[in-house]
């Protein structure tokens, strides 16, 4: 307590606003104390978690990376490489009895990579797929990045993107036509996911508004639609798409299977989006409607400017949840014979050269889906924080 080194001597006796907080409450030590060691139970759980991670992580890294083989001709080549590392004569040796595969054979995935990405899209035309991936990146960027230069133009481009890319892929713009049953792999997943997401959101919003409409006809139609779609498994709808839908159409109309599946996926997801958005709409206090009404805004303007911006903000977690569900559900098209990454994986495993490497295939597909879905989830959290205006 020496007042000589205090720059401001006007403090009350005993008060030291110039003192830093106690060491034990801030910094790394403070964080560890607060989050890992705050109570006896917490200490036990921290120890158990550390032990678990310490056991699992090293062997995981060993299998995934250290013992893994990235370049091989076939599965035997792969197995022998990882069993006799550094041995130049490894191919002539025999695998020991009771041998267990010590690492991942990523050479298999590398070997099939183009199949995983493009499906059976004809090789000379694959630049179109690459171009449409690039176009997708630009479209996604313009939707997600609100400070993009010339954003207005790019947003219109993003609206046009699904049509432009679709046209490019099936052979518009004077290019040679490509049948949609050759579409596969990640290309197919992205077509299903992007189309489903972009079209189900506006459709879902309209259904949600319709369900709350004061006009009984509109309301009943929306309720029937939503309840019917929600009451039927997606698989059933996909079977309807693949087998029955053409019977409902006027005779002679040829209706591509992929288009039929896209419609079903979009309708399915729209019904869920509608319920999520309806929940958001119910969270908007009536005063907001009244304020909008009293200023003379009509129904559409009030919804567009006042109600929906707030309702959609509340609904972001639910909407993104539905999108992630939709994105993963695209793998169900495997059952009606379309070759999404899972379908490609299964057919690759049937190859005698590579049979038995199921772990690598499914792990690869899992990682692909995880990266996609985790980014969506993180973006939704970022968006929620950004739109928070302190109320």
């Amino acid at each position, binding site marked *: 307590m020496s007042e000589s080194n205090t720059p401001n001597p006007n403090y009350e006796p005993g008060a030291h606003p110039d003192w830093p907080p106690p060491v034990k409450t801030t910094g790394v030590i403070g964080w560890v104390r607060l989050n890992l060691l705050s109570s006896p139970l917490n200490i036990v759980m921290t120890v158990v978690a550390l032990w678990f991670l310490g056991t699992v992580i090293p062997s995981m890294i060993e299998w995934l990376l250290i013992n893994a083989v990235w370049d091989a001709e076939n599965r035997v080549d792969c197995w022998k490489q990882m069993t006799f590392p550094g041995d130049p004569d490894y191919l002539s040796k025999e695998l020991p009895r009771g041998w267990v595969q010590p690492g991942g054979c990523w050479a298999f995935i590398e070997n099939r990579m183009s199949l995983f990405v493009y499906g059976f899209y004809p090789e000379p035309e694959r630049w179109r797929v690459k171009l449409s991936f690039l176009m997708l990146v630009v479209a996604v960027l313009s939707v997600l990045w609100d400070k993009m230069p010339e954003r207005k133009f790019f947003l219109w481009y993003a609206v046009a993107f699904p049509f432009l890319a679709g046209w490019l892929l099936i052979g518009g713009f004077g290019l040679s036509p490509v049948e949609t049953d050759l579409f596969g792999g990640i290309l197919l997943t992205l077509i299903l996911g992007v189309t489903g997401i972009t079209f189900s959101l506006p459709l879902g919003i309209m259904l949600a508004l319709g369900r709350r409409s004061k006009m009984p006809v509109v309301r009943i139609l929306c309720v029937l639609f939503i309840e019917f779609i929600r009451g039927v498994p997606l698989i059933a709808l996909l079977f309807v798409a693949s087998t029955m839908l053409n019977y409902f159409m006027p005779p002679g109309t040829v209706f591509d299977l992929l288009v039929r599946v896209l419609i079903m996926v979009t309708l399915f997801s729209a019904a869920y989006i509608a319920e999520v958005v309806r929940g958001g709409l119910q969270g908007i*206090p009536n*005063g*907001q409607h*009244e*304020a909008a*009404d*009293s*200023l*003379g*805004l*009509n129904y559409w*303007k009030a919804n567009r*400017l*006042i109600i929906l*911006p*707030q309702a959609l*903000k509340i609904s972001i977690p639910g909407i993104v949840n539905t999108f992630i569900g939709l994105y993963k559900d695209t793998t169900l098209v495997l059952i009606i014979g379309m070759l999404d990454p899972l379908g490609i994986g299964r057919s690759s495993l049937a190859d005698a050269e590579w049979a038995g490497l199921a772990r690598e295939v499914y792990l690869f597909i899992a990682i692909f889906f995880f990266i996609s879905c985790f980014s969506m989830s993180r973006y939704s959290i970022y968006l929620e924080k950004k*739109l928070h*205006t*302190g*109320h």
Partner: protein
Amino acid sequence: MTANTETNISSAPSVDASEVIISIDAMHKWFGDFHVLKNINLKVHRGERIVICGPSGSGKSTLIRCINRLEEHQQGTIEVDGTELTHDLKNIEIIRSEVGMVFQHFNLFPHLTALENLTLAPIWVRNTPKAEAEEAAMKYLERVKIPEQAHKYPGQLSGGQQQRVAIARSLCMNPRIMLFDEPTSALDPEMIKEVLDVMIELAESGMTMLVVTHEMGFATAVAHQVMFMDEGEIIEQNIPHEFFNNPQNDRTKLFLSQILQH
């Protein structure tokens, strides 16, 4: 609040007795089976300021909400500035854009800044160019004395500031009539004055005002007429001095004794 305030501007010759701007005739309203408004007859002249008071559930809020069709009446007629309120959406929109309303809970748009709250309706209902709307909005924010809060969100403002933004938001549409639905009831005591000051300034400018409030000091200072409602009926209506000092009806006397006691 005392009923005998000397700063009385209600005698200001701003009422044009010849011009009726709101005319309510034999109006009834029900909520389901509940008869909430019974045979309401009311004429409001241009520039007139009427304070409506009454116990809660007496239908006073419902009455002013009928004037801009936030509530629908089932019998009788309501005419605002020569336009009758019917199911015609066009008429409703015309009337709403000429009648401003201030709510008990402000009802600002929380996702927009104060300035955006003000410019939204001029831009989207009146098609005012954005720059022009912002200039006008800043003028109104200065009038309610919070231009420095223009770029804050409602969630960052105090209750009194929010209510002043809400008043400015209504004024941006250049309304000919302002409805106030208990504008100070949700405010902390120390913020009531700043809102009442804005309302008094508005009254001095000659605005036609219908105010549901229990601020009797305000009523004495600015109202031409004070109206007492109970159980869906207009019980008594008089100039403030007479209303407070010489109430006729027993229910009015009881109500006044209850709110003026402390």
